[in-house]
Structures are given as C-alpha cells and as structure tokens.
C-alpha cells in the first residue's frame, strides 16, 4: 500500500505541491487530472521516488520509501515518464530485458527470461522484438516501454501521460492494456491523464488537482460532473451521459454568444432528452446507439457550420463597417 503524507514540494519559492496526502487505492486505476501546472506530474514523480521528497513522506507498506534500498523499491514500484524518444541502438527485446535489472542486476536467469517472454507476449510485441526502438512508431514504442515495466514485475505502476503523442486508436488500445493490467494481473495503476474523457471512461478512481492541491477525489460518478470539473479546469463543461458512461463536451459552446444562437440551447435540451430516454431503456440495441451517435454528430457538425458562418458574417460586417468609415 502506498500512502502519501503531507507532501510539500517546491521549485524555488513556489509550492508545486501544497501539503498533499493521498492513499492510493489498491487494485484499481487511479487517474490524476487537472489543468497544466496543477502538479499532477510532480505528485506522480514524488510518489514513485523519481523526485526526492522535500517535506513529508511517502510510505510503502508503512515504511518510508527513503529508507528502502532503491533496488528493492524498483521491485515494488515501476514508473514510466512521458513518451520518450531515445536514439539508442536498443532492440525491444533488450529494452524488456532491462526491466529485469532490479531483480537480477543484468545477469538473466531462467525465471527472468520467462518473465520477459511473458511480457512480450502480453504486449503483442513478438513480431517486432528485434527492431530498434528508434525505428518504432509512437504506439509501438509506448508498448515496448510498458512491456519493460511489466517485466519489472511490480505491484504498482505509475504512468505519466501515457497517451501523449498517441492517436485515437493507440490511445484506446493503451487504456485497454492498462485496464487489463489491473483486472487480469492485479496491478495497481496510477496514471496522469490529460483528456478527462479517457479518465471518465477507464479510471476507477479520479483525483482532481488544482494549484498543487487535491481538490476532489472519488469515483467517476462523483468527479465527472459539471460542478466539480468546472472548478478543476476553470472552464464550462457540458456532460452527456451515454451508454452509462459520462462524456464531457468542453469545446466552449455554452459560453459563446448566449443571445445569438438560442437554437443551440434547444439542441442541448434535445440532447438531454435523448440521453434520458436512452437511460430509461435498460437494454440498448446497437443500431439505436449508432443512430444516436449519428444524430449527435450531425448536430455537432451543424453547430460548427453555424458558428463558422456566424464568425464569417461578423468579420464581413466589421470589414464593411471599416470600409464605410473610410469612404465617409
């Protein structure tokens, strides 16, 4: 069990983390969310011993992490920082072998090789295991590093923005992998996520940070709601419930020009009705959800079209005004 107690971390005079205490839920995905500079990555770094603790303590099974040998900690906690571009001549196979370093110090034994094979199979890297990591795509490289961490065979896994630079397909794949780690291999995963929708869809537990403090924590249901998120991100959120999942629309259509396009509000109401109706139906047929999606998509498109023309119209009007002024 990892417990974080009264951590205060500062760069210069500014407190990046301000008296943070947190118990990390075992056997679950904990997502750290928050705006840029909220201290998510710093908290992750401190909890995973990458950053030295300035004040406060991190307890691993009730022992201060500082007093445990780094080698021993590495058998318990694995951490992966943001997507890295190493221009080293290291193959995937070798990278995964490095994962066994805390256990064997670089001299591989039979059980180490077994673990390596296992994690390569788990991450489906067998076909490309002899490729150099600097010739892989972003998604493959990310998978290779996750495989290294799997080979490390730790109970706790910390990931700092694993979806950075990944496109939609790879992001979803990555989150599925992370969920598999928790459900199948009984790992405890803490992950910093930028996209609130990924947190909403995959996390078991969400910790919301702002200005170096934890301002909210709880299950997805408790955190992904307008009041909390508006506060966390200083932004107006619109949350749709679909298929029992919450999806956040944060592209700013609530705050823009309230008077001008009242029909959008009507649309929103309509959306709400739609989602309500889907909630009432216990069993959802696939076709209907698809249609819902389609109509939603169409509406979004219409909305953006409308916005586009409205903006264009506005700029034209401004231009003609200035022209008129010139003539007079």
């Amino acid at each position, binding site marked *: 069990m990892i417990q974080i107690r009264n951590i205060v971390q500062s760069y210069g005079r500014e407190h990046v983390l301000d008296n943070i205490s947190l118990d990390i839920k075992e056997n679950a995905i904990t997502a750290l969310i928050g705006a840029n500079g909220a201290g998510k990555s710093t908290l992750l770094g401190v909890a*995973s*011993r*990458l950053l030295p603790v300035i004040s406060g303590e991190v307890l691993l099974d009730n022992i201060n992490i500082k007093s445990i040998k*780094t*080698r*021993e*900690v*590495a*058998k318990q906690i*694995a*951490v*992966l*920082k943001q997507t*890295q571009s*190493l*221009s*080293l*001549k*290291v*193959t995937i196979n*070798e990278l995964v072998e*490095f*994962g066994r*370093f*805390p256990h064997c*110090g*670089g*001299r591989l034994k039979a059980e180490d090789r077994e673990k390596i094979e296992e994690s390569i199979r788990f991450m489906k890297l067998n076909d490309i295991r002899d490729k*150099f990591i600097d*010739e892989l795509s972003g998604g493959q490289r990310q998978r290779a590093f996750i495989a290294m*961490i799997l080979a*490390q065979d730790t109970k706790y896994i910390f990931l700092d923005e694993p979806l950075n630079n990944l496109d939609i397909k790879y992001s979803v794949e990555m989150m599925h992998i992370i969920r598999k780690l928790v459900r199948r291999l009984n790992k405890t995963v803490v992950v910093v996520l930028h996209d609130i929708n990924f947190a909403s869809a995959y996390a078991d537990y969400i910790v919301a940070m702002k200005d170096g403090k934890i301002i909210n924590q709880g299950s997805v249901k408790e955190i992904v709601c307008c009041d909390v998120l508006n506060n966390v991100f200083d932004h107006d959120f619109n949350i749709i419930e679909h298929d029992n999942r919450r999806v956040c629309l944060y592209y700013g259509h609530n705050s823009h020009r309230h008077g001008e396009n009242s029909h959008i509000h009507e649309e929103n109401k309509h959306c709400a009705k739609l989602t309500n109706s889907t909630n009432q139906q216990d069993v959802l047929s696939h076709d209907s959800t698809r249609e819902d999606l389609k109509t939603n998509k169409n509406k979004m498109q219409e909305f953006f079209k409308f916005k586009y023309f409205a903006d264009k119209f506005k700029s034209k009007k401004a231009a003609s005004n200035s022209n008129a002024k010139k003539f007079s």
Partner: protein
Amino acid sequence: MIKLNYRPSKRLQKIIFAIIIFAIVGAIALYFYSRTYAKSQKVGLPMTAQAFKSISERIVGTLVGMSVSAFIIAFVSLAFQTTTGSRILTPSMIGFDSIFIGTQTVIVFFLGTSTKIFSNVYLNFAITAGAMLIVSMLMYGAVLRNTKNNIVFLLLFGLILSGIIRSGSTYLQTLMDPTKFNQLQAATAVSINSMNAKLAIFLSPFMIVICSIFLIRHRSYNILALGEDNAKNLGLNYLKETNFNLVMISLGMSIATALIGSLTFLGLLAVNITREIFKTNKHFILFLASALIATFALVFGQALTELTEGSVPVTVIIDAIGCSYMFYLILKENKKL
C-alpha cells in the same frame, strides 16, 4: 559511415574485433618500421642491431603511453557520453588542457623551475592531476547536478572557465623571465613525440585499474544510457552513480592530458565509430571496441607522421577528421529535431 540499420551478428562482431586487432598490430609494425628502417634510409645510416635495440626500447615506451592514453580517452569519453546522454560531447571539450597549462604556469611562476614539484615528473603529475580533478569536480558538481544534465550550460561553463584560466596563465607567462618561460613552454607543449615514457609506464597500472572499474560496471552503464528517469525506475542510485562517474572521468582525463596533452576529438571519433559499427548499447562491447579503435587511430596516425617526417602531427590529423565528423553529427542531430 555505414548506413545499414541492423546489428552485426555475434560472429561478425568477433570478426570485426579480430580485424581491429590485426589493424593495430599492423599499425604497430608500421610504427616500428617508420622509426627504425625508414629513418635509417633517410638519414643514410645503416640500422645496426645495437641501434635497433635502443630505439625499440624507446618505441615500446611510446607505444605504452599511446595505448594508455587511447584506452583512457575512449573509456572516459564513452562513460561521459552515457552519463550526460549526449553523443556529441567529450570531456576534453570542456578544456582540460587549459587547467593543465594553468597549474604548470602557477607552479613555475611562484616556485620556479628548480623546485621538485616541477622537476620531479611523478610529483608534478600528481599535482596537476589533482588540480584538474578538483576543478573538474567543482565544475561538474555546480553544473550537472543542479541543472539536471544541462549540457549546453556545461559546455558554456567549461568554455568560460578555460578561457579565464588560459588568459590568466598567459598573463603570468608574460611576467616571467625568458628562461623560466622556455622551460615552461617545453613542459606544457606535451605531445606524443615529447611524451615521458617513464611516466607512461608508471601510469599504466592506473589505466588498467580505471578501465577495469569501468568494464566491471558495464551493466549499470547500459541502464544509465536509458536516461535519468528510466535508470531511477530500474533501481539505479542515479545520483551516486553520476557522482562516481564524474570522479572517474576527471581522474582519467587528467591522466590522459598530462601524458599526451589535449586530443579533443579522439574520444568522440572512436566512440561514435564504434557505435556506428556495432549498433549496440552493450557497454562491454562499446568500451572495448572504442578503446581499440582509439589505439589504432593514435598509433597509425603517429606512424604516418613519422613516415612523413613529422610534417603533419597526428593530433592535427585526428582533430581534422574528428572535427568534420562532429559537424556531421551535429547536422544529423539537428535534422532529427
């Protein structure tokens, strides 16, 4: 450079090693030839057995010195590159030679040339190496630890520091009387030709110890190459490791500089050629191969210099090749970004 992006097989690796060793043997033979028979032909004197023997003794001393320096430079450069995570940096770029000249100048200026510290080779070496060690440790400590491997800052810092030391020693030299100055000049213009063979043989055990320490720890260098975060994740005590490395690097650099002066690009060249050929991160191979390549470059270059009667010093050749190679590396890195 070889552009193929695959790694040579284990068998091929062994063959490459064999080729390099043959090349070194060839270079040594060429060096012997250039200093004995080639020279005797040019001068017009017959090569007697007696003369051959006495020259050979000197040659062996020079060869030991060259291989000691080449090994140390290659090992230290590789360790430095791995620690700083940069392929275009060598410790000598930071200006060890200026510290060397600075210490000698200070000794001569304040204590004169007759003092034991200056005239006794071993004592002199100990003092200069110590000074280099202290200065470089302070520099690394101030720059590398606080600013998280900020390489540009380190280079800038080294450049400025060596500039200050150099101009300071020039100032002291202008104040000296001419005889002192001449003796100082003779002592500081170290090169392979004027290498002290006694000192070289004295230092070879140190070289063996330093190189074997690097070799024994090759596994942790493999991890260190993955960068700070990954190394920490894998349970390496990063701070301890880096500090230890910096001590070893300063020690090695001071030995090499005191022996043959500054060879800025030898390490860079040897390490990068090795990386290109072997395409591996296994530091055991990298250490050995780059040391052998550095030895070959130094001995072969020196042999060529002897054959051309010193018209082109070997350091100039190596620096010319190394410099153009460094341009290539910088341009390549630049393209990637």
